C-alpha cells in the first residue's frame, strides 16, 4: 500500500531486551512504564464508554416515544446524571490522559514520564472513584440525580449518594491534578536536546496548556463539592439561602471550573487533529506558531466566559454583555485553527485513510458545534435556548464529534506504533461512515427539538416532539454498536493484522516514528540525537 513506507534505523530502542515485569499484577498493578499506564487509561476509558453508552441507551429508549415507557422519572434523572459524569470524567478525560502517557515521552524523546510512580497512582485512583460512584446505583435512594452540574439545593436532596458523589469527584480531581503535574514536569524537564518548545509536536503543546488548565480549575471543583458536602452534613450555609448563603454562588464557582473543563476536553483533540492532517496531506502544518498561540488564547479566554452558562439566573446587564462578548471572542482563535487545518490540506497530496477521515469529520462536525456555540453565546437568543435540547445538541457535537472523534482518530493513527500491526482499512472506514451517519441522526434533530422548545433532562414530552425524538433514538441505537465495532476491528488487528513499519504512515514526522513498531517497552533510554527531518516542526542546527 502506498501509504505505508518502510523505514528505519532502530537504534533509539532496545528492542528485544525490554525487561517487562513478569506476572499480571507486577505488569499492570505496579507498573511505572508510561506505555503500560497509557494502555491502562485507554482500556479504562473504553470500559467507561460502554457503561456511559448503556446509560444513554436507557435515556433514548425512554425518549423514543412520548409518555413513560421503561423507567420512572427519578431513575431517568439518575441516568442523565451518571451518563454525563461517566463520559466526561471516566471516558473522555482518561482517554486523553492515556494518549498523553503513550505519546508525550516518545514525542519529546524522553525515556518515561518525569514521575513514574505518581503516574501509576494517578491511574489507579480512577477505578476506585468510579466503583464508588457507580455503586450508588445499588444504594437506597439510588444514584445522584441532580445533574452532573450538581446544583444545590436539588443535588443536596439525594441520599447517601451525595457523599459518594463528592468523594468520587475528589478522587477524580486528585487523579487529574497528579496527571497534569506529571505532564508539565515531563514536558518542561525531559525533552531531548534539540526539542525546543516551539519545535514540539502540537499534541504535546496542546497537552502542556491543558495540564495548566487542569491545575488551575480542578481545585476549584474540589472546593465547590467540598462546600456541598459541608452544607449537607456539617450545617454550613454556603449555598443555603435560609442560612445566609447563595445557591447562585455555587453556579459561579462550578462554571469557573466547568468552562475551562470544556476546553480541557477539546484542546488535546486540537493537538491530535494537528498531527493527523499534515501526515495525510503530506505537508507541514500550516501556521504552526499561530496554532500554538491560538490554543493558548483559547485557554486564557476560557477563564473569563463562565457566566455564559448562567445568563438566565439574573445577572446584571453589564455582566451579561461582558460574558457575551468574551465568549464570542473565542471564535477568533478557533477560526484560526479551523482555517489552518483547511490550509494544511490545500494543495496537499491527500489520502483518506481511517485516521484522516476521523480528523476531517472532526473539523466539519466540530465546526457545527462551534456555530451553535456562538448562537448560545448571544444573550437574547440564549434566553430561548437555555435548558432546551438545542444545548444538548450543541455540546454533543463538541464532545462526541469533537473530542471522541479525535480520540478514535488518534487510536487508529498510533495503533500501528503501539502494536506493530495494521488494522483492516476497509473496516476502519466502515466504522467511520457508520458512526458518521448515526451520530448525525442522533444529534442533528436535537437542534430542531430545542428550537421548538423541548426542555432537556425530562423523561416525557409533548407529542409535538415525537417524530424527531424517534429518529434521534434510532441514531443512538446505531451509535451504541460502534464501541463493539471498534473493539472487533482492533482485536482482529492485534491477532492477525499485517506488520506495521516503523514509520507506519508515509507522511508522518516526529520522534515517535523513529522507533520501531511496536514501540519497545523502553524507548529513548539515551537522549536521541536529532537529525535533519526528524522533527515534525522545525529542524535542528548542530
Amino acid at each position, binding site marked *: 500500500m502506498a501509504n505505508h513506507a518502510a523505514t528505519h534505523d532502530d537504534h533509539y530502542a532496545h528492542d528485544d531486551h525490554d525487561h517487562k515485569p513478569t506476572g499480571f499484577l507486577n505488569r499492570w498493578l505496579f507498573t511505572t512504564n508510561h506505555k503500560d499506564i497509557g494502555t491502562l487509561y485507554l482500556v479504562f476509558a473504553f470500559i467507561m464508554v460502554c457503561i456511559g453508552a448503556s446509560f444513554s441507551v436507557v435515556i433514548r429508549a425512554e425518549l423514543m416515544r412520548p409518555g413513560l415507557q421503561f423507567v420512572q422519572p427519578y431513575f431517568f434523572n439518575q441516568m442523565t446524571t451518571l451518563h454525563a459524569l461517566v463520559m466526561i470524567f471516566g471516558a473522555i478525560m482518561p482517554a486523553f490522559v492515556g494518549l498523553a502517557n503513550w505519546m508525550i515521552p516518545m514525542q519529546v524523546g524522553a525515556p518515561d514520564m*518525569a*514521575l513514574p510512580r*505518581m503516574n501509576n497512582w494517578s491511574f489507579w485512583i480512577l477505578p476506585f472513584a468510579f466503583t464508588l460512584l457507580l455503586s450508588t446505583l445499588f444504594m437506597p435512594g439510588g444514584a445522584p440525580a441532580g445533574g452532573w452540574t450538581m446544583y444545590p439545593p436539588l443535588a443536596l436532596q439525594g441520599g447517601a449518594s451525595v457523599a459518594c458523589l463528592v468523594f468520587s469527584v475528589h478522587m477524580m480531581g486528585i487523579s487529574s*491534578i497528579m496527571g*497534569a*503535574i*506529571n505532564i*508539565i*514536569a*515531563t514536558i*518542561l*524537564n*525531559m*525533552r*531531548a*536536546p*534539540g*526539542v*525546543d*518548545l516551539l519545535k514540539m509536536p502540537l499534541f504535546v503543546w496542546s497537552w502542556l496548556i491543558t495540564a495548566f488548565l487542569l*491545575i*488551575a480549575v*480542578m*481545585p*476549584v471543583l*474540589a*472546593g*465547590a463539592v*467540598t*462546600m456541598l458536602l459541608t452544607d449537607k452534613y456539617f450545617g454550613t450555609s*454556603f449555598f443555603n439561602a435560609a442560612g445566609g*448563603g*447563595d445557591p447562585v*454562588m455555587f453556579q459561579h*464557582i462550578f462554571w469557573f471550573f466547568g468552562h475551562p473543563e470544556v476546553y480541557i476536553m477539546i484542546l488535546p483533540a486540537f493537538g491530535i487533529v494537528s498531527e493527523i492532517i499534515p501526515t495525510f496531506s503530506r505537508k507541514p502544518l500550516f501556521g504552526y506558531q499561530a496554532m500554538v498561540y491560538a490554543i493558548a488564547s483559547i485557554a486564557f479566554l476560557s477563564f473569563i466566559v463562565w457566566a455564559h452558562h448562567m445568563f438566565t439566573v439574573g445577572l446584571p446587564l453589564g455582566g451579561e454583555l461582558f460574558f457575551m462578548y468574551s465568549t464570542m471572542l473565542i471564535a477568533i482563535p478557533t477560526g484560526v485553527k479551523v482555517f489552518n487545518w483547511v490550509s494544511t490540506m490545500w494543495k496537499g497530496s491527500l489520502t483518506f485513510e481511517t485516521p484522516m477521515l476521523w480528523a476531517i469529520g472532526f473539523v466539519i462536525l466540530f465546526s457545527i458545534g462551534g456555530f451553535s456555540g456562538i448562537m448560545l453565546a448571544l444573550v437574547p437568543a440564549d434566553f430561548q435556548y437555555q435548558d432546551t435540547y438545542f444545548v444538548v445538541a450543541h455540546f454533543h457535537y463538541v464532545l462526541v464529534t469533537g473530542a471522541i472523534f479525535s480520540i478514535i482518530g488518534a487510536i487508529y493513527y498510533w495503533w500501528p506504533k503501539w502494536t506493530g500491526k495494521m488494522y483492516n482499512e476497509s473496516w476502519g472506514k466502515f466504522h467511520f461512515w457508520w458512526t458518521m451517519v448515526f451520530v448525525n441522526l442522533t444529534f442533528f434533530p436535537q437542534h430542531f427539538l430545542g428550537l421548538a422548545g423541548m426542555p432537556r433532562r425530562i423523561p416525557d414530552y409533548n407529542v409535538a416532539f415525537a417524530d424527531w425524538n424517534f429518529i434521534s433514538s434510532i441514531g443512538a441505537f446505531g451509535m451504541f454498536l460502534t464501541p463493539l465495532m471498534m473493539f472487533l476491528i482492533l482485536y482482529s488487528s492485534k491477532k492477525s493484522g499485517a506488520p506495521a513499519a516503523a514509520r507506519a504512515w508515509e507522511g508522518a514526522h516526529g520522534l515517535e516514528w523513529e522507533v520501531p513498531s511496536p514501540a519497545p517497552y523502553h524507548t529513548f533510554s539515551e*537522549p536521541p540525537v536529532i537529525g535533519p527531518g526528524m522533527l515534525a516542526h522545525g529542524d*535542528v*542546527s548542530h
Partner: protein
Amino acid sequence: MQNHSVHFDPLARRAAARRTALIMACVALTIFVLFFVEALRH
C-alpha cells in the same frame, strides 16, 4: 538553536522535574484554599 532548558544530567533532570511538580502542587493547593476562604467570606 539548541534547547538550553533541558538538563542533560539525568539526576539534575529528575531533581528539576520534582521541583516543577512541587511548585504545581502548591499552586493547586493554593487555588483550593483561596476559593474556599473567599466563599467563606461571602
